[in-house]
């Protein structure tokens, strides 16, 4: 794109340059000046011929005055001055032209002087020629024919003829004869008085004619031989040469100009076509924009404001929602819609954003003409000029008053709900606390009568053993046994409730190591059973060590209790197949029926008879409670007779 503009500029410059050169050259070839110069040359040539012709006419008395000569001379002078002035002005003139012009001027000065001489000498000759007939007539009149002076009269007339002949033809014979006759007559009539004086006077004029004629002819010939025509032709050809050279040069520039113009023209046409295409594109774009605007207007509330926030455009939707009409809004500031809902900082922030040229998005509560509030989801887009300064703002809004209403209702509902839940939770918590306190107090309070039953039964057995038969003693034994069982039940209950109230004290602990410690104790206790314990290494976890110990111990006790009587195998590890990974403890004991899985973690629930396996049925309930307190999960998988696997996770692993 840029190189094309560059070439266009260069082309423009080329055209301008050629124009300038052409102009400068056209100064050299000013056609009007040229035609004037040519005209002057022609006039001068004509005049040089005409003046020669006139000279001949004057000389041979075809014209008897000098007015024509004087006029022609003035014409020559005038034309020559004009030509010289133009040539001095003309840029075509060079040294040669000036030199030749000077020579021509000198020639004309000579011509002028020679012409004056010609006129003077011709006048002298003409004077005598004019007078000659009169003089001859007067002379012959004075000569008395009676004195037989016919020969004198004849001679006078002959002389007159010879002189005229000589003057008109230049016949040298006439001159010789005339001069001879003149001399002889002059000799004869030397006296200064009388008729001789008249004769002398006559002869004087004759002599003058004979002597003046060559002078006149010389002056004439000198004038005719002036190289005026040659000089004019020389000057003319020098000038023409210069002119042709200049015009050839101008022709070259003109050619360049033509070429450049054609290229420029093609370029202009191309640009024009481009413009048309762009205009068409622009038109369709505008139309599209128009439709887009229409679509926008159908959906959104649109206003346009100038940089001070004064409204310059509102669409129909806006009028509908604001209840103002078009004319009421145009030119007004957006502030008239301010509902006062938002703090001043809200709008300050908005103006800061959009005056920086950034798009602002937010929800505004406005007030319509009737004072009602409405909510609009607003996007303000600043239009920035080249310097980045916004010059207008387009605000597109969506009416969200309905949404806002629903939202408010929803919040209200939620708050109400939350309040209710809190109430109930509080009641529930109170109930639980009361229950716990109750169970604690019951179990605690139950222990003393139990202790009394057991104690008194024992005393009875000890102190009255002889007085009681064996059957009574057996009953007493059973009483004591049940009392002790109930005591252990109460203990377990107490422990359970105690665990429920205990706070968790997490620290880093390794369940694997804990298992091994616990197992050592149990292995000692069941040394005769040859239990195989497999403990896989597991990572450390965050948990309450005492409680975890309880969990593991319970599970281990169960595993040992229910494991294979022949060859018990207990395995502890971390199962990575679950998500999150769960610890597991597996045994190969009796297992349980999954149908009773629901009862597995219930308190005082037993899946086996007491006489088969002892236990209070509190262990797994306790375990589940601790695991849940840790935020973990516990579950089990088993098949009757094929052992069971307990899995558990602990949050914070």
């Amino acid at each position, binding site marked *: 794109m840029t190189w094309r503009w560059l070439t266009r500029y260069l082309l423009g410059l080329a055209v301008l340059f050629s124009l300038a050169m052409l102009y400068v050259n056209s100064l050299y070839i000013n056609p009007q000046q040229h035609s004037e110069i040519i005209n002057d040359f022609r006039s001068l040539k004509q005049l040089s011929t005409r003046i020669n012709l006139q000279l001949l006419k004057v000389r041979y008395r075809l014209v*008897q*005055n000098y007015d024509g000569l004087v006029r022609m001379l003035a014409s020559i002078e005038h034309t020559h001055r004009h030509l010289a002035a133009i040539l001095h002005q003309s840029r075509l003139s060079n040294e040669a032209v000036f030199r030749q012009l000077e020579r021509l001027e000198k020639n004309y000065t000579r011509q002028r002087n020679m012409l*004056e001489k010609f*006129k*003077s000498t011709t006048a002298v000759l003409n004077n005598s020629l004019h007078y000659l007939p009169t003089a001859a007539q007067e002379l012959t009149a004075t000569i008395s024919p009676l004195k037989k002076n016919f020969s004198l009269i004849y001679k006078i007339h002959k002389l007159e003829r010879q002189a005229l002949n000589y003057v008109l033809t230049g016949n040298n014979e006439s001159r010789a004869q005339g001069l001879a006759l003149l001399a002889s007559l002059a000799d004869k009539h030397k006296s200064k008085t009388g008729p001789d004086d008249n004769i002398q006077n006559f002869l004087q004029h004759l002599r003058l004619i004979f002597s003046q004629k060559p002078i006149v002819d010389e002056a004439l010939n000198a004038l005719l031989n002036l190289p005026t025509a040659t000089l004019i032709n020389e000057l003319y050809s020098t000038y023409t040469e210069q002119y042709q050279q200049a015009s050839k040069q101008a022709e070259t520039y003109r050619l360049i100009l033509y070429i450049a113009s054609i290229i420029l023209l093609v370029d202009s046409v191309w640009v024009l076509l481009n413009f048309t295409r762009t205009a068409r594109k622009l038109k369709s774009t505008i139309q599209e924009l128009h439709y887009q605007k229409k679509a926008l207007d159908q959906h959104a509330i649109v206003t346009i404001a100038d940089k001070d926030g004064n409204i310059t455009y509102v669409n129909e939707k806006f009028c509908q929602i604001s209840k103002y009409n078009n004319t009421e809004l145009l030119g007004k500031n957006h502030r008239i819609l301010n509902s006062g809902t938002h703090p001043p900082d809200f709008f300050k922030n908005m103006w800061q954003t959009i005056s920086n040229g950034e798009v602002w998005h937010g929800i505004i509560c406005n007030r319509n003409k009737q004072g009602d509030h409405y909510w609009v989801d607003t996007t303000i887009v600043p239009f920035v000029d080249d310097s980045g300064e916004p010059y207008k703002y387009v605000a597109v809004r969506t009416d969200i008053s309905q949404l806002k209403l629903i939202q408010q209702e929803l919040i209200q509902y939620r708050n109400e709900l939350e309040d209710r839940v809190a109430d109930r939770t509080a009641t529930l918590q109170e109930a639980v606390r009361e229950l716990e306190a109750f169970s604690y107090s019951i179990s605690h309070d139950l222990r003393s009568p139990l202790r009394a039953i057991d104690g008194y039964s024992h005393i009875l057995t000890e102190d009255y053993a002889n007085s009681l038969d064996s059957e009574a003693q057996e009953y007493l034994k059973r009483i004591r046994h049940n009392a002790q069982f109930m005591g252990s039940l109460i203990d377990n209950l107490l422990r359970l409730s105690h665990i429920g109230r205990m706070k968790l004290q997490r620290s880093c602990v390794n369940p694997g190591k804990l298992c091994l410690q616990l197992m050592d104790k149990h292995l000692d206790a069941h040394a005769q059973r040859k239990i195989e314990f497999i403990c896989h290494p597991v990572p450390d976890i965050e948990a309450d060590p005492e409680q975890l110990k309880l969990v593991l111990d319970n599970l281990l006790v169960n595993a040992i209790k229910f494991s294979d009587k022949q060859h018990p195998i207990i395995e502890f590890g971390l199962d990575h197949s679950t998500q999150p990974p769960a610890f597991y403890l597996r045994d190969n004991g009796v297992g349980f029926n999954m149908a009773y899985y629901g009862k597995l973690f219930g308190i005082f629930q037993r899946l086996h008879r007491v006489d088969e396996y002892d236990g209070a049925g509190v262990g797994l309930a306790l375990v589940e409670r601790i695991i849940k307190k840790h935020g973990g999960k516990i579950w089990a998988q088993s098949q009757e007779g094929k052992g069971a696997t307990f899995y558990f996770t602990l949050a914070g692993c």
Partner: protein
Amino acid sequence: MFLSKGFVGRRSFKLPHYLVLWLGLLPALFHPCLADHDPELEPLQVIKPAASLDDDKVTLGSRLFNDTRFSADNSLSCASCHDLNSNGADRNRFSLGIDNKPLSVNTPTAFNSSRNAPLFWDGRALDTEEQIDFVVYSAQEFNTDWPTIVSKLSKDADYLRSFRAIYGRPPDRNTIIDALAEFEKSLITPGSRFDQYLLGQHDILTEKEKRGYLLFKSYGCIACHQGQNIGGNMLQKFGTFRDFFSQRRQISKADLGRYNVTGEPADKHVFRVPSLRLVVLTPPYFHDGSAKTLEEAINVMARYQLGRKIPQQDVDNIIAFLHTLPGQYKGRSLAIDHGQPAGDSRP
């Protein structure tokens, strides 16, 4: 030769070139052959008013002609010496120049002077333009220069307006001279009785006057005093047959005539032949005003220029002829001044 070359050669532009030349020459070649009685061939010619004069320039020129701001001391105008109310000259032997000092030659009339060439007694000016220059710079006459004159005239609002209207610029040497020259072209005295005679009214002249004309021709006066101005268009030595100045006790510089211009010995005592159009109105005569009357002048001319003596009767006839020459200026016959100098007789 030119014709054949032109036609046969058919060389692009040379054809019209020579044709023009020939077309120009043809009438000139045939003209004299046809015109034995052509009035143009007469030694004396009818004087015609100048064709196509610019009236505004003439009016402006007339103002300038009478403007005394031309001279250094604002005392003299052109009209001071060339009084158009009488004869276009004055009656004195020498007009009074600047500081009232007499000039060295007699003032010739301004009437018909635009048809004279060269100008001045010694023919030092080729045309009116040069002539005005000489007068402006002459120490005896205006004794000033153009910048002074132009600055003086430029202060005149009327002039400024006129020059602007006519020439489109304020007055300067060229425009002032042009206006004056245009005015001088208007100073023509056509319609004389002699001109009417030349135009064919043969009975308008009396016998005596016709006789005078014939004598004027036959005595040879016509050799120099020819053309429309009856002289004024050539130079001639004063004293062709005899030395006019030999009897003078003292020869002034002005007496040397054209010699003062060219410096050539042959030009000693050569003067411009004066026009005889208004000769009867403009005594005294000759460059030095030495001839107080026409009679005296004619006798001097006959003796020194024509080499003969003219009888008194012929002189009278010639004078009668000379009286037919003055025409009219602005439709009014030029009157002879009432204070007639002695010897100026009328037929």
